[in-house]
């Protein structure tokens, strides 16, 4: 099986910004590409993607659950499950969820090892109830 260590993942930036020097579409690379992918997955609802209704971050139903340790734990499990299923490049180590009741939000820290690296990296995601 070919190793992915050191592989240069390259994706375009969903902000569709342009490069200041030559005006091309901006890219995201390396671990940042994986971070964007994780963000996309956990913010996707079931049925949202064309012809791929099973892609689901699993958070939609939980964001309206009451604040509490139980909900935090369920969010953590849902994220770990979704990433395990849809993002093979991230070897998930830990998902911590902390409620910010005052802001109606959750602060989520996802710790993983990218498959093109040996260093752990942590992605911080802030989920707000609109």
């Amino acid at each position, binding site marked *: 099986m070919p190793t992915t260590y050191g592989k240069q993942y*390259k*994706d375009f930036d969903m902000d569709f910004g342009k490069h200041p020097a030559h005006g091309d579409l901006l890219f995201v690379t390396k671990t940042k590409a994986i971070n964007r992918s994780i*963000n996309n997955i956990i913010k996707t609802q079931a049925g949202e993607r*064309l*012809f791929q209704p099973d892609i689901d971050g699993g958070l939609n139903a939980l964001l309206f659950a009451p604040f509490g340790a139980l909900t935090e734990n369920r969010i953590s499990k849902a994220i770990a499950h979704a990433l395990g299923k849809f*993002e093979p490049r991230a070897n998930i180590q830990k998902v911590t969820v902390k409620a910010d009741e005052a802001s109606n939000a959750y602060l989520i820290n996802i710790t993983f090892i990218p498959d093109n690296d040996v260093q752990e990296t942590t992605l911080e995601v802030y989920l707000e109830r609109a």
Partner: protein
Amino acid sequence: MASAEGKLNISELDFTKIKDNLIGFLSNQAEFVGYNFKGSSFDVLMDVLAYNTHYNAYYANMVANEMFLDSATLRNSVVARAKHLGYIPRSARGSKATVNLTITPTGSPSLISVNKNTQFSGDVDGVSYIWCTANSHTINVNANGVYTATSVDLTQGIPVTFRYTANTGDVDQKFILPNANVDTDTLSVVIQTSDTDTESYTYTVANDITTVNALSKIYFLTENADGKYEVEFGDGVLGKNVSNGNIVIMSSLICDADDTNGCKAFSVVSDVGGYSNVKIETVSSAGGGQEPEDMEGIKFNAPKSFDAQNRCVTTHDYVTTVKRDYSGAQSVVAWGGEDDDPPVYGKVFVAIKPASGTVLSGSTKAWVQDTILAKRNVVGVTPEVKDPDYLYLKINATVKYDSGMTTNSSATLKSTVSTAIIDYGTTQLKDFDKSFRYSNLIKKIDESEISVKSNQTSIAIKRYFYPLLGSSSAYDLKFSNEIYHPSNTFWGAVTSGDFSYRDSANTLWTGCRMQDVNGVVQVYRTSGQDRIIVDNNVGSITYSSGKMELLSFKPIAIGSATTGNTTQMAVYVTPASNDVLPLREQIILIEEGDLNITMIDDAGTGTYVQGAVGSVDGTTLATGY
């Protein structure tokens, strides 16, 4: 899938495969790495690209499908393709009935006028429907002072009139019949010159473009994209065009299609010809009502109508033309006179099985001959409409069943077997060119209920004829199937219903029947177990062709009838083959009264039952029909 060389496969239509092809293609590009992960931005873009490709492929596929009559799935596409073939889909048809009216007026008018669209009421399944006279009638008083109109045709439907004022400045003006169940057979199109000038002209539907000129008062009928019928007028070259301010008056019946078939009794809605004391006698019950032609019907009929080109040359043309122009026909068959028996050169025969009843009235046959066929067929050929020739199957079945496998009684099982046989007759026979297949029938009987173990079934062919009682006449009875006759000493393949007959000593015997002896048809009576010949030769039978010719047959009575030729007599033959094939206008029917079913409980006993048909001589044949 995309090839390893980086070529993009573009032949797929499915979303997933299109996306796989795109990914396979891009895997050879160094520009992006990460498009094959579900969360990547590029994967979302892939979705959009694949969706767009899939959408366009689907659209192109559908467009191509809708371009052809065979593959079109939308009604308006099918209708549009049929239009190119000059075919107008048949509209809904109101069922038709015939009645006799006897009016008792107050006073003694010299005549009574019954207008077209005079309304009657008729109930079907507890629902009341409106029926209208198809034509106007003038009734004169007869010698007995009775006012009677015979054979008044009624058509089901509510009369509705639509009026449009022609506006030649509006190029988009349409003359549409807005109701869904318009019966276009009843459509009348009249153009009034203007609001102030009430002179009006009746326009007729254009069926034959070769006879149309600039002054022809014709209209073209089409079905539009919404499934509504639309009237179009000529352009001043092909048919007279409408002028600005003309009032277009379109009248037709809005019918209830086949819901009203079978209506037998009618009553007056308000009055008939101004009088309410009306006695209505039903001559023929309602039939011929049909739903609008469906897409399958259009796909089937349009190419055949195009083949016929509105003229009758081949037998197929006759069939197509009659089906198109006479909505009361359930099925039609045609054959050249040279194929008839005996051959009749210069004629084409058309047999029509009506949607309701078994035969057409004489006036309807004449109308089909003279109005539909005579003006479209080849000069020198005379069309003749015939009735279907019905052959009936007499079925004797001994059915063994295992009572341990069912909770049903013997009587219930017998009813179930009977229903299975009747269903077989309804679905597999009852039409021209539908052959009776023996093995299919016995299979149906075996499968009619789980406890049925086997059946031993024999058949006979029955047909009716109407002898003139008290007179010696000749009759041809065509069974059209070889009759069982294994040797010259065999007798008993023919029998009949009972009738009265005089012997050579002029003694009248009741309970007489026919039998055959080596090609000769005889009349016999029974005395105990013995058969005594009453007349030893009333005709002949040709076993190979199944043709019986009665030459000097003079029955005196059938049942209580002693005069006329309106009482039917049944004649039965045993066919040589258990499969029975109809010829030309023949139709095979199975009726409940012709079933003789015997149920035998064979629960574990292995009961042996002698077969119903013997093969040695006539004494063991199933007789006594």
